[in-house]
């Protein structure tokens, strides 16, 4: 099986010097959800932003390649790259409110993509938007099309964004902490929806999260990052097993669980915590 996304030896550095992402390689196949896990400063969001071509100004890619269906995204002419975004590579953002334009109706935001990227007529685009909202299990889809974002609940907004992400049948979706802002019962529905949609459309998903619980429930493959480097990579069963890398196990031990008493919780060892703080500080510089 050939990979949809194939990142090789990616390096991201601060322009004034200092590594943020060091020699990271990973690949995501069609129909696969690949989890990118780590604490803040691990480099997971930087990698996702490098794929989407939206790195902050203080940061540059200083080495490696980002292979996407045979092309290297880093070498692509800006015009061709923009043509891919939205159409071949789509994003499900973290915050469902900022992901939508507050001043425009849902219908306008959904049909933009369909009309401009896929050249559909107004009527076609509206019919397809309606079908997409039904596919993400929104009841009264026709009414929702005519609403503004603030009139919808957080879960509904995230469903709309998922519908938009899948609207052009992209081969890769980058999901950046897509459920962090949601209530836990809504989170479960959204995770389920992402998996259903991804399976139905055979989409490759790069799933960025800090939550090992979410990883265990939605990912097939996992890359664990620490201070910009890969500490472990493999199938979900390996990562969740007791044979996982010491760093992964330390994170697991520091994750509280409602089914375990308080003394089962172990804060990460001091040296790991110092490294985490140093890495987080470097990232603060990247996002002033």
């Amino acid at each position, binding site marked *: 099986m050939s990979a949809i996304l194939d990142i090789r030896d990616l390096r991201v550095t601060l322009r004034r010097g200092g590594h943020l992402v060091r020699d990271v390689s990973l690949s995501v196949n069609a129909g696969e959800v690949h989890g990118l896990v780590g604490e803040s400063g691990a480099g997971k969001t930087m990698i996702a932003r490098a794929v989407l071509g939206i790195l902050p100004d203080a940061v540059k890619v200083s080495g490696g390649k980002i292979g996407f269906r045979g092309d290297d995204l880093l070498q692509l002419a800006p015009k061709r790259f923009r043509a891919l975004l939205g159409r071949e590579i789509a994003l499900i953002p973290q915050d469902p409110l900022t992901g939508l334009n507050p001043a425009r109706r849902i219908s306008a935001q959904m049909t933009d993509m369909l009309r401009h990227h896929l050249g559909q007529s107004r009527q076609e685009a509206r019919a397809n938007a309606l079908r997409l909202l039904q596919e993400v299990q929104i009841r009264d889809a026709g009414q929702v099309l005519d609403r503004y974002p603030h009139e919808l609940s957080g879960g509904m907004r995230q469903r709309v964004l998922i519908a938009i992400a899948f609207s052009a049948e992209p081969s890769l979706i980058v999901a950046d902490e897509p459920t962090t802002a949601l209530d836990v019962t809504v*989170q479960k529905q959204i995770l389920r929806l992402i998996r259903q949609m991804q399976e139905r459309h055979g989409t490759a998903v790069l799933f960025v999260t800090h939550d090992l619980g979410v990883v265990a429930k939605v990912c097939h493959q996992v890359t664990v990052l620490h201070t910009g480097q890969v500490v472990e990579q493999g199938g979900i069963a390996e990562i969740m097993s007791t044979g996982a890398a010491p760093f992964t196990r330390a994170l697991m031990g*520091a994750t509280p669980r409602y089914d375990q*008493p308080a003394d089962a919780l172990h804060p990460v060892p001091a040296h790991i915590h110092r490294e985490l703080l140093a890495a987080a500080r470097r990232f603060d510089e990247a996002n002033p």
Partner: protein
Amino acid sequence: MTGPLLQVRDLTLSLPDRSRGKLFAKPPMTDILRGISLDLPRGESLGIVGESGSGKTSLGRTLVRLYQPTSGQILFDGADITTLDEGAMRTHRKHMQMIFQDPQSSLNPRRRVGEIVAQPVLALGVERDRRAALKRADLALDRAGLGHAFARRYPHELSGGQRQRVGIARAIATEPRLIVADEIVSGLDVSTQAQILALLNDLKQDMGLSLIFISHDLSVVRVLADRVMVMLGGRVVEEGTSADVFQGPRHAYTRQLIDAVPLPVIEPGWLDTKPATEGTRMVDIKGQTVLVTGTSRGIGRVFVDALLAAGAARVYAATRDGSGSHSDARVVAVKLDVTNSADISTAAQTCADTTVLINNAGINFNSKLLETDQVDAAAAEITTNYLGTLNMCRAFAPVIEGNGGGAIVNMASILARVNLPLMGSLCASKAAVYSMTQGIRAELASKGIAVFAVLPGAVDTDMTKDFPPPKAAPADIVAEVLAGIQAGEADIYAGDMAKGVSGGLAADRPAVIAEMAGYV
């Protein structure tokens, strides 16, 4: 002093809802907290969990009197602080401190950390001398694991975890007896979060603190809380020791919350278990007290047995004359004619532990809309089917709400969505039931009551003996209704005919209406 540090009785809070109401007019009041009672023993910790809008944050703020409660009583250290003004509260403030979610926005960016931590020490008169206050701040910073060297720094120089430690240092600097911590680890990484939780646990032990720990995250609450309260719609739906609530939740909503937490373990099929439809909660029949109207025959009678099989704790089987007996001791016969308001108010008192109401009673004259009868069929159908159901909802919504929430199930009909010309007045009454059900669903959602509309097709009972087949067996309809309730489906289309009509209406509404008109 012995006795609980904090005693709260029947606390309610109503605030103006600015999202509703007209411009320049006084906004309508909305109930945020509804009758909260709790005891917090000295040195113990109480976790408060709930989703957004549950009232958990408002409760925390009301307990430390940042909000003035609308009614009820708060005793802190034996003193009634419910209505004290800010001046009188000052003597208590140093003993009760609050830590907020976002340390970034609650720390003054222009002040050094030492001054920030010393601020409440001076303001609340714990120390009068600035030097002495800064000394206390140093001690608090040491206790919070930062070290007093941090006193010289500014908030922007700190990481998120360090800022939260400053928030903790500020809260403990006045040597309080109670700390209310609201979502204080939710923005933090796992590694930092574990350290903050460990720190709070140590402080609780060393300083003998009582702690109220508010969070949406059940796992985090488990780490710190001796006891847990689960909130929904401004009420407590379940309360108990952490171990009991998390290992053996009794309330359906608690179970639903727990089921939704993704644990870091591989569990194939987890995503597909019990999907809750947005807007309507799933309701587990197990352990519920259910009142069913119209149980003398037909679907009502079948409901009783199906509810028992699904694990209902008690079933009130209502009939017009109160007759009927059942071999199962959980069944209680109730005399209830839904057109009789005296019957309804008596039932609301005798069946006061009801958590699920199934409005099944209905009549059916099969008469045309323009035909007049000796007894006006249209008026009778509206009185029983519509007004009877509405009055039951009115009487039992407060009962169910008072029992911590539950469900109301209204039996409408697929004829609520399409009119059969030969029985137009029945259809109109069912349409009224369906419309009313949608209305109360919105009103009752915040009260922890899930409202279901059932739209079955033709069912094979003695009331429909004149109907042509196909007719569904009552047992199949009832099974589908209970499955729909437990899956949280707001509108339950029971039976193939109902699903067919509903699908047809969505695909080609005029064609379905034309087909129905063809029955003339």
